[in-house]
C-alpha cells in the first residue's frame, strides 16, 4: 500500500468517523475509558468486556470505535490516581507513581496531570501515523519473535530495567527475586501441575498483578501516612495556587524530548508480544533518567519521569492495534478482548481484513485521531478539579482511598483472594518503604518472570534441550550480546580508568 493510497483511505475513514453517530460512540468510549482508568483496579480490560454486550445491536464500526476508545482512554485516566494518591489507576501507570506523586507532594499535581494528557495526546497522534503507514510490514516483522528471541529480549529487559529507579542495586535485585518467586505461583506453564499452591484451589490461577501493584503503592502509602501525628492528618495538605495548575514554559521545554522519546519507545515495544505498555513505561523512565543532565531529581518529582512513561504507554497501546488488525492476533489482554468483540460483529481480523472491511479499519483509525483530541479536551479542564482532591484533609482522604482500592480491586474479578493479596502487599509495601526497598523491580519481575520462564522452556523443548538455540538465531544473539555489553561496560570503564591511573603513576 503506497502512502498516497493510505491518505486517500484515511480521508474516507474520516468521513466514516465524523458521522454524528460515530462521534457519539467515540466520545462515549473516551469518557468510559477515562473513568475505568481513573478508578484503581478497574482497567481497560474490564471496561471493554463489560461494554461488549451493549454493542450487540450496533454496527461493527461504531462498536469498535467505542471499545477502542475505552482502551486508549484508560491510558489517559490511569495517571490521575497515580499522581494524586500514589495508587496506580491501571497497570501501565506504575512508573507514573514514582515522580508524579512526588510532584503532587510538592504542590505540582496540576502540571503533572496536564503533562500526562499532553504527552498522551502527542504520543497517540504520532503512533497512529505509524499505524497508517507502517502497519503491514511492522506486523510481519513482529512474527520474527519466536520463543528464543523473546527469551533473549526478556533477559535484556530484565537486566536493564531491574534497577530502574536507582538506589541500592542489591536491594533492587532482592526485590526482583521476590517478584520472580511470586510469579511462579499457580499452574506450571509446561506440565500443568500446580506449584506453590499448598492445596488451595484459589491459587491455581496465580497472583493478580493489579492486586500487588495497588497494595505495594497505594495501600502502602496509606499505611505510611497513617502513622503521622493527628495534627498533620487534620491539616489540609496542599493548596495549589491557580497559576501553578498548568505546566510552565520551562516544564514544557523539559518534557518535549521525553514525550518524543517515550513515543518512540512505546511504539517499538508495543509491537512485541507481551505486556507492552508496562514494559514501555519502565524503559522510557530508564532512558530519561540515563540521559538527563540532572538525574538526581528523578524520584523527587522530575517532570520528565512523568511525561516519558505516560507518552510511552499511550504509544504502546496504539501500536498494539497493528498486530490485532493485520494479523488478527492479540499481543496483550485488552486487544484479546477487542478481538472477541470484532468476532462477535462478524469481522475476522487477519491479513485480509483491511481489504475486506476498509470502512471499518479506516473509520476506526480516523476515530482514534478524533478520540485523542476529545480526550485532551476532556482531561485538561479536569486538572483543577482533580488537583483539588488534595485539599481534602488526610484523615478523610486516606479512608476514602482505602475504600476505592478495595471496591476497585474486587470489581476486577469478583474474587476475595485478590483483596487479601492486596492487603498483604500493602503491609509489605509499608515495611519496604520503612527500609527503603523499591516496589518497581518487584512488579517488573512479576510481569516478566512468567513470560521469561515460558519462553526459556519452550525454546529448550523445541531444541530438545540444546542451549545453542539462543545463539544460533541472529535476533536472539543480538539481544544477548547487548545484555552482556550492558553488564560489562561499567567494569570495562573501571578497568580502563584504573589502568590509565597506573600508567600516569608510572
Amino acid at each position: 500500500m503506497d502512502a498516497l493510497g493510505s491518505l486517500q483511505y484515511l480521508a474516507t475513514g474520516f468521513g466514516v468517523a465524523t458521522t454524528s453517530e460515530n462521534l457519539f460512540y467515540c466520545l462515549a468510549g473516551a469518557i468510559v475509558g477515562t473513568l475505568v482508568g481513573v478508578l484503581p483496579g478497574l482497567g481497560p480490560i474490564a471496561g471493554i468486556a463489560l461494554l461488549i454486550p451493549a454493542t450487540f445491536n450496533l454496527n461493527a464500526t461504531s462498536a469498535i470505535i467505542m471499545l477502542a476508545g475505552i482502551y486508549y482512554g484508560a491510558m489517559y485516566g490511569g495517571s490521575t490516581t497515580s499522581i494524586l494518591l500514589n495508587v496506580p489507576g491501571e497497570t501501565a501507570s506504575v512508573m507514573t507513581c514514582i515522580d508524579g506523586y512526588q510532584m503532587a507532594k510538592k504542590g505540582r499535581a496540576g502540571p503533572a496531570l496536564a503533562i500526562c494528557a499532553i504527552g498522551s495526546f502527542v504520543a497517540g497522534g504520532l503512533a497512529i501515523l505509524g499505524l497508517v503507514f507502517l502497519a503491514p510490514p511492522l506486523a510481519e516483522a513482529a512474527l520474527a519473535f519466536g520463543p528464543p528471541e523473546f527469551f533473549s529480549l526478556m533477559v535484556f529487559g530484565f537486566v536493564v530495567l531491574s534497577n530502574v529507579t536507582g538506589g541500592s542495586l542489591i536491594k533492587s535485585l532482592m526485590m526482583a527475586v521476590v517478584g520472580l518467586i511470586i510469579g511462579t505461583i499457580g499452574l506450571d506453564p509446561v506440565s500443568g501441575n500446580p506449584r506453590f499452591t499448598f492445596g488451595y484451589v484459589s491459587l491455581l490461577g496465580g497472583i493478580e498483578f493489579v492486586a500487588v501493584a495497588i497494595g505495594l503503592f497505594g495501600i502502602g502509602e496509606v499505611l505510611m501516612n497513617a502513622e503521622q501525628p493527628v495534627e498533620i492528618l487534620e491539616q489540609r495538605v496542599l493548596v495549589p495556587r491557580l497559576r501553578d495548575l498548568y505546566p510552565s514554559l520551562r516544564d514544557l521545554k523539559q518534557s518535549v524530548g521525553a514525550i518524543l522519546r517515550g513515543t518512540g519507545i512505546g511504539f517499538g515495544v508495543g509491537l512485541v508480544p507481551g505486556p507492552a505498555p508496562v514494559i514501555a513505561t519502565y524503559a522510557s523512565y530508564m532512558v530519561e533518567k540515563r540521559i538527563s543532565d540532572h538525574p538526581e531529581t528523578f524520584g523527587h518529582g522530575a517532570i520528565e519521569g512523568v511525561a516519558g512513561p505516560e507518552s510511552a504507554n499511550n504509544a504502546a497501546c496504539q501500536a498494539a492495534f497493528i498486530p490485532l488488525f493485520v494479523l488478527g492476533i492479540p499481543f496483550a489482554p485488552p486487544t484479546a478482548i477487542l478481538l472477541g468483540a470484532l468476532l462477535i460483529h462478524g469481522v475476522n481480523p487477519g491479513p485480509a481484513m483491511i481489504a475486506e472491511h476498509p470502512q471499518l479499519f479506516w473509520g476506526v483509525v480516523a476515530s482514534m485521531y478524533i478520540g485523542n483530541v476529545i480526550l485532551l479536551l476532556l482531561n485538561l479542564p479536569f486538572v483543577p478539579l482533580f488537583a483539588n482532591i488534595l485539599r481534602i484533609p488526610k484523615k478523610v482522604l486516606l479512608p476514602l482511598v482505602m475504600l476505592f482500592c478495595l471496591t476497585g480491586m474486587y470489581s476486577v474479578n469478583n474474587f476475595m483472594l485478590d483483596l487479601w493479596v492486596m492487603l498483604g502487599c500493602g503491609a509489605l509495601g509499608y515495611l519496604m518503604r520503612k527500609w527503603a526497598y523499591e516496589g518497581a523491580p518487584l512488579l517488573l519481575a512479576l510481569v516478566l518472570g512468567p513470560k521469561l520462564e515460558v519462553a526459556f522452556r519452550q525454546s529448550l523443548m523445541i531444541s530438545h534441550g540444546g542451549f545453542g538455540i539462543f545463539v544460533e538465531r541472529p535476533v536472539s544473539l543480538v539481544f544477548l550480546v547487548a545484555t552482556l555489553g550492558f553488564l560489562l561496560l561499567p567494569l570495562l570503564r573501571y578497568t580502563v580508568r584504573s589502568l590509565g591511573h597506573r600508567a600516569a603513576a608510572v
Partner: protein
Amino acid sequence: MRSVAGIVLALTLCAGLAGAGLAAEFPAKEVQIIIPWAPGGATDLVFRALAAGTSKHLGKAVVVVNKAGGGGAVGYTEAMQARPDGYTLVTAVTPLTILPHQATTTFTYQSFDPVINVVQDPAMFQVRADAQWKTLSEFLEYAKKNPDTITVGNSGAGGGVHLIALAFEKAAGVKFNHIPFAGGGPSITALLGGHVHAVSCSPPEGIAHVRAGKLRIIALFSEKRFEAFPAVPTVREQGVNFAMGQWRGLAAPKGTPPDIVKTLHDAFKKGMEDPGFVKTAQDMTVNLAYLDPVEFGKVMAADHDRYAKLIQEIKKQ
C-alpha cells in the same frame, strides 16, 4: 427408564408440595450464569450473546457473572455451593472434566446437573500453507520416520487442545514434540512466524489465516466435516479412527428440581434457535451443536474418563 422416572417423580413429591408450588412460578427473578473465566474469552462471548437471546423466552433477565481464578476452579466451586433452585447456572465446558484430574478440586462434573449443550468446537491441527506436508498421510509418515521432531504448539499445558493432540498422537501411532503457549493466539503467532511446525487449536483460532491462504488445516478431528471448510476431510475419513472436540454448555448445581431444569432447558433451546444468536455464532465461526440434558451428561462422563487416562500418562512422563 420408567422406574427412574418414577423414582424422580416420587422424590419430587416427597421433597414437598410447597417446593413444587414454588417451581411452578419459576422463574420469579433473574437467572445468573457464572462463567469461571475472565471476560472476553470465547465461552464468555458465546454465553453473553445466548443470555441476551434467551431472556425473552424465559420471561426474566439472564445475567452473566464472571468469577475468574484458579484456572476455572473458583467459579465452579462457587456454583457448586449455590442453592440448587435454578437461579444459579454455570457454563460447563471441557476443562470441567480436566481440572479435577490435575488438582484436588472439590468438584467434578457430577457436582452439577446438565442443562443443555450449546457448542461443539472441532479440534484440528493447522500448518503453514508452505509446509512440506500436503496431506495427512505425508504428515503422519514424516512423523513416523522422525519421532519427536515435528513441533506442535498448543494453547496451554494440560489444556483441552494439548490433551487432544496427545490423544491423536496415540491413535495415529506417532510422537510429536508438544510446545505449550499462553493461549491460542500466541500459538498461532508462533506458527505464522515459523517457530513451530503445527498447532493444535479450535476455531476461531487461526481461521482468518486459513481463509487468507497463510495456514492450512492438515488434520480435522470432528465427527463430521467442518461447515466453514467443506473440502477438508476428517482424519476418520482418512483412516485414523479418532474424533475429539471441545464442548460448551450449561449446568446447574446438583439437586436442582428436574422441572426447573426442563424450564431452563426449553428457554435456552429457544434462545439457541434465535436468529440473532445463530448469526452471532456464525460470525464467530462457533459450531452450534444442541444436546439435551441426558446426552450432554453422557458426553461429560465419557470425556471425564478419557481425560483421566490422558493426564495420568502426562504425569508419568
